[in-house]
């Protein structure tokens, strides 16, 4: 069995242990632990999963099985400004596809990817509960409503440094 060389710093390992401890190192709390870890580290690379598996005393394969089951968990770092396009039904019928297309075109990335400079990543989600504003786009915590393909450039401009 080869070892996963944990590329984490000691303080990161301690942080992870602390998170697991918070949930009493209960195997049943795996998802809560992963949530908290992703909140802290931004994503869940192999080495984080390894530490969590050891701390909760569950198999690494299982942790990976859980991480890959839930679309909220990611093993690749998101961009500084994660862009999520709502493709829920209400947004879809009001043209979310075209908005998505425009984002892809302008950022030159596909869904699930991050721009080369690490600034933007693109993902889809289904209904953020603001259907009244369809089509809806979220960048970080900020929600944009009634987005049209023409408006995409202006939105992106807000994030130009």
């Amino acid at each position: 069995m080869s070892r996963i060389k944990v590329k984490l710093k000691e303080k990161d390992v301690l942080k992870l242990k602390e998170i697991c401890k918070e949930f009493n190192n209960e195997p049943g709390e795996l998802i809560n632990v992963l949530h908290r870890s992703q909140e802290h580290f931004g994503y869940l690379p192999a080495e984080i999963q390894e530490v969590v598996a050891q701390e909760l005393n569950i198999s690494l394969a299982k942790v990976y099985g859980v991480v890959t089951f839930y679309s909220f968990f990611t093993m690749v770092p998101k961009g500084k400004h994660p862009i999520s396009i709502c493709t829920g039904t209400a947004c879809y019928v009001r043209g979310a596809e075209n908005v998505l297309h425009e984002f892809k075109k302008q950022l030159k990335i596909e869904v699930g990817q991050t721009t080369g400079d690490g600034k933007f990543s693109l993902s889809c989600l289904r209904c953020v509960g603001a259907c009244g504003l369809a089509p809806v786009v979220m960048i970080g915590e900020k929600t944009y409503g009634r987005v049209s393909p023409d408006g995409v450039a202006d939105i992106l401009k807000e994030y130009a440094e």
Partner: protein
Amino acid sequence: MAKYKTHLLVCGGTGCRASLSDTIVDKLKQEIDANHLTDEVQVVMTGCFGFCEKGPIVKIMPDNTFYTQVKPEDAKLIIQEHIIKGRKVERLLYKDPVREEFVSDSKDMQFYQKQVRIALRNCGFIDPENLDEAIARDAYMALGKILTEMTPERAIKEIKDSGLRGRGGGGFPTGLKWEITRKSEADQKYIVCNADEGDPGAFMDRSILEGDPHTVLEAMAIAGYCIGASKGLIYVRAEYPLAIHRLKIAIKQAREFGLLGNNIFGTDFSFDVEMRYGAGAFVCGEETALIHSMEGERGEPTLKPPFPSVKGYLGKPTSVNNVETFANIPPIILKGAQWFASIGTEKSKGTKVFALAGKINNVGLIEVPMGTTLREVIYEIGGGIKNGKKFKAVQTGGPSGGCLTEKHLDVPIDYDNLVGAGSMMGSGGMIVLDEDDCMVSMAKFFLDFTVEESCGKCAPCRIGNKRLNELLERITKGEGTMDDLTRLRNMSHVIKDTSLCGLGQSSPNPVLSTLDNFWNEYLDHVQEHKCTAGVCKDLMTYFIVEDNCVGCTACARACPVGAITGERKQVHFINPSVCIKCGACMDRCKFDAVIIK
């Protein structure tokens, strides 16, 4: 709160917050300060009013003035005009699209007239982060009543007599579920609130959690008392940060006031609530999957029986109930089963919340008595189809539902009638479609969703839905055959017939219902290679009408691939083999010369 003369209720629902309603609150407060009105006027941030289309909403009490599409810069005007001078700001009032008049009292708005608000009774009326306001509107009274006056059996009977059925989609009688869970013997039992709400295009549970979190906590405690559980769990989508935030506050407040915890109201009943988070898997709304997810596993459903009410969370009897179901409980306890049962139809009692969206004027959250017709919902409450287009269909039940058409408009909505019409209630998503929507694409849209969300455990759903989707894809590309249509139907039936859980058992519904109701549209795609709605890109050709083209060159300049040729002031021409069908030329042409054929 009695000392204030006027209350400014600002919507703090997700939609309105996205349009800066928190800034409006800040601005209003500044103005109130500046005018030394702090003792008289109070600003309250509430949950969703339901009328999200015209948000942000500011409602003024006690006179029910309903301001729509308020901007932060309007704050000054509202304080100056309305509060100080007592004059309504007409520009911000809702304008009735039919009568073309401004409506100053929200009670006169058609949007609200047909609604009966039970589950949403407090949404938009209270500050969800303030327990006092909830209590002022009777929160925890029902809990107090059953703890002091009713046995669990008596309370269960009340719920059974009310005829309340689960609002999470299945429509299973809630009282019966509690009774079964009560009768399952175990040392520990659990109450679970299903707040996963994964249906793409539904946000009623979210609005309740955001607008009235205490009602859910209260109802969970009531349920706990009824089945004999001391522990409740709320499984909520991680994508609902505001709901989570408000729930956490509510739990803390309830604990502080002894409304959760040990010996509630001094009785020997103890009950507490914990939060669990979903992580982006629609199937986790299914109750067995939800339980596995709460146990830290992959959210894969398991066969029923055993039902959760017998063997659920950690192997213990568990009652899983939906948020909206819970929101109905306290009023039933307080007002009685008879009152609730007097609303609705024979087999579906009470009201139902719908998330009305799509091509409709008044997108928003509505609550209507069971038995209301689609026509009333769409044309009266919803204000009709957007931009005067023609109604085509309404999709209910989300990805597990079906499309209802013109001929179903007068069907009274309830669980059984919707199923009879080939759709279902589901969680209450209601998406209105107009003539510009292609029903094959719509079916494909839902299949895309189920393929993405299938857990992969069983073969018919994991592979079958993928194959259905591929067939639909071919049809939208004009490559489908008549044989494919036959196969679509057979595959759909087999997937429904053999899938393990509700997801696969219902995923072909959008296909079957569009095949039934829009057969001609399928035929057009297959035989004529035409998409009449003009949605399927592969089946469209952009074409310039000679008579309309004035040769302005705007289209040619807009075309990203140089597909358009033509001299200035001469008729232009699109080369179909170069065109990528982006539609830019059509958008740009001011003379309606570019059309789709």
